[in-house]
């Protein structure tokens, strides 16, 4: 993300939010771990046993050189190789919209981990709706800086859409947080349609249903 909101510590607000959902000392797989910022944060803040998968070679090599346990791989194809219940948490941070098969990816996450944590940019945010409805063009925001013809993001969804995916993928929602444009959580008591309108990003903590 280009200009993600950051806390005074310098850490990205959405990553802090994710890390707060993770139990101390847990075994964690970060799918699409980029340059390893979240894994490093999790190791520092939550003392986790962290692993990562990253599709870009540069990202992987940077992570490994930092001493993180990261392999080069593709969320769409390589999650199938992991055994059931191998991790306490499987995290998909700002990556869902770039997967080819979000449903399959989510189902694997719920299979591999006892919990899944998914964060994504909310396509239901009012500013995006406005750009599409009035501007008549695909949206550009600080979080979504790409032109439509070169974006890696091929499966956008709104918070409302994601809740629907949770239903079909057999996920139980344990916690959900939406962040407004300044990276502040939206008050919990608000109804879902407010979240869907005001939340620029969302973070969901999920577990397998039944």
């Amino acid at each position, binding site marked *: 993300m280009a200009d993600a909101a950051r806390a005074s510590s310098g850490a990205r607000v959405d990553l802090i939010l994710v890390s707060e959902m993770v139990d101390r000392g847990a075994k964690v797989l970060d799918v699409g771990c980029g340059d390893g910022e979240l894994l490093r944060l999790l190791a520092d803040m939550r003392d986790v046993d962290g692993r990562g998968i990253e599709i870009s070679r540069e990202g992987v090599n940077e992570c490994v050189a*930092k001493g993180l346990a990261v392999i080069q791989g593709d969320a769409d194809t390589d999650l199938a*190789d992991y055994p059931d219940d191998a991790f306490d948490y499987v995290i998909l941070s700002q990556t869902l919209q770039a997967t080819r098969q979000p449903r399959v990816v989510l189902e694997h996450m719920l299979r591999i981990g006892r919990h899944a944590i998914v964060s994504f940019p909310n396509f239901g945010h009012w500013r995006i709706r406005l750009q599409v409805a009035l501007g008549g063009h695909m949206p550009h925001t600080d979080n979504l800086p790409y032109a439509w013809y070169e974006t890696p993001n091929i499966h956008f969804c709104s918070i409302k859409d994601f809740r629907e995916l949770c239903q079909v993928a057999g996920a139980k929602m344990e916690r959900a947080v939406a962040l407004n444009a300044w990276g502040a959580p939206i008050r919990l008591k608000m109804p879902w349609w407010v979240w869907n309108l005001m939340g620029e990003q969302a973070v969901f903590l999920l577990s397998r249903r039944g």
Partner: protein
Amino acid sequence: MVEATLEPADRARETDNPHSLVAHFDIDRPLKLDAGVELCPFQIAYQTYGKLNAQRTNAVLICHALTGDQHVANVHPITQKSGWWETLVGPGLPVDTERYFIICANVVGACMGTTGPASTNPKTGHPWGLDFPVITVRDMVRAQAMLVDHLGIESLFAVVGGSLGGMQVLQWTVSYPQRVFSALPIATSTRHSAQNIAFHEVGRQAIMADPDWRQGRYFAEGTNPRRGLAVARMGAHITYLSDAALHRKFGRRFQDRANPTFSFDADFQVESYLRHQGITFVERFDANSYLYLTRAMDYFDIAADHDGVLARAFKGTPTRFCVISFTSDWLFPTADSRAIVHALNAGGARVSFAEIVTDKGHDAFLLDEPEMLAIVRGFLDGAARARGLMR
């Protein structure tokens, strides 16, 4: 052709009395071989660098490749060239001799001081030759474990190696998982492919087709199958490089001439280079050792030792792994490394995997590849923190 200057007898002297530390294992400590026989007495020639700490937790074992030896970071006693992994091992380098106690041993079956077919058979007083039992990668690792015991080290901080060395690294983690804290298998595989066995067979046939090979009894008969061994080396050397690297280095350029000679001289630079590789190799390597070590690689198949399921070999492993491959390595391609990673993940191992972009082929692991060096450094630093090794 340039003539080799070293006679087999000179090589044999390095074999029995090497310029190295030597650990002797007498009949009370035999090496039990996969072939079903015991090797005893035998010896292991090895080099060490750096200091073992008081807790004995900073030992790093380097495993050498097919034609390597224990002289990983010092001038070679025969070739007078600098250590074969001088880019990686040394003061301040990723495998830091100021931080770790580094051990590198000549493998069983080789010819630089550890017992092999060129060594003197104590029963006959003559070189073993083909009477030497066929050895496996597991045997090499079993012998190394005896050396590590001999040095009073319970657990190795890291085991590092490329190619055949990488096979030994993997075998270490399977044979002695509790004794390996971290493992760096580079440009390697859990099994030798059919194509690689095929290349090895060509090399062996080149040696055995040399009339000077004399059924392996060339020491007794005063000959040396240097043409056969040189051809084996030339063929193998091509597999260590890549089309792109050969093209970049030599292209179709002529060697010291403007026009072709219309003969079978080494007109092309690439021919001259290969001939040089073959000839210099003969000076430092024993032909029978080449047969034995290539055979050990051919037999290597970790999955076969575990009912055909590779993941079973690594199940519950406590070792941290960092697997590295190179884009242009067609001898041990990235797919082989991915298979290792796949099995390690299925076994729940803590594994990192990086593929390095290079056109230098299999040999890249021995060369100055900054990205590989950064990754090895980062991985070992992280493991050292986890192991509580302070700077």
